[in-house]
């Protein structure tokens, strides 16, 4: 079979991306990458406890500042978003589906919002 060489062609811009499915994807990808990069840091922080409770306590006190609190809250929101967005993807892929994708998206963003609020209130 002849494979045609792709000559440069035009690409989509933001105008073609103004719909719910694309926004759900964007949220899912951004939150996913951020969480993946945060993981080693998170594990490293908790592994301080191998040196005893004092080492972990020392680290936790070091993070006791507004910037870190805000980042923590942001990460919790991203985690909630990524989970609910992921459940949406699993539902789309593994459940026989009709026209409820937008409802699913609304549910997932709503659930993530609730978690974000709960964490902010508990802080």
């Amino acid at each position: 079979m002849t494979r045609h060489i792709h000559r440069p062609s035009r690409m989509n811009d933001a105008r073609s991306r103004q719909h719910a499915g694309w926004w759900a994807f964007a949220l899912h990808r951004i939150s996913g990458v951020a969480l993946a990069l945060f993981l080693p840091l998170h594990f490293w922080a908790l592994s301080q406890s191998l040196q005893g409770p004092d080492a972990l306590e020392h680290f936790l006190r070091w993070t006791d500042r507004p910037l870190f609190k805000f980042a923590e809250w942001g990460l919790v929101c991203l985690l909630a978003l990524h989970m609910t967005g992921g459940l949406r993807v699993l539902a789309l892929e593994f459940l026989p589906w009709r026209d409820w994708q937008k409802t699913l998206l609304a549910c997932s963003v709503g659930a993530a919002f609730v978690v974000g609020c709960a964490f902010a209130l508990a802080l």
Partner: protein
Amino acid sequence: MSARLQTWLWIAQRGSAMVLAVCVSVHLVTMVIAVRGGLSAAEILARTQGQLAWLIFYSVFVVTVTVHAVVGLRAVLGETLGWRGWLRDLCLGAFALLLIIVGARAVLGVFGAGQ
């Protein structure tokens, strides 16, 4: 990498996602409870030290999140940076190893293995 292996990676990612949905739900609830009145090492360790259930839970969590994150990053690197091929997969393998090692240290730490 063969299409067969790529398919298995995809299945592993979706499978791990299903497990993670449970783990993350537990994690979110635990966090909301844990941050009340501020985070403290004593409070965290009092919950987890010597608790076999938490040890198993966090071990499963670390393994599934490693699989999930690495396969996810594989697609992102290919699509966003155009980085494909064996070197990308090798680097991701190294990242997976790092996550497993540091993750295991974290799990053992909160279980109280350092005492």
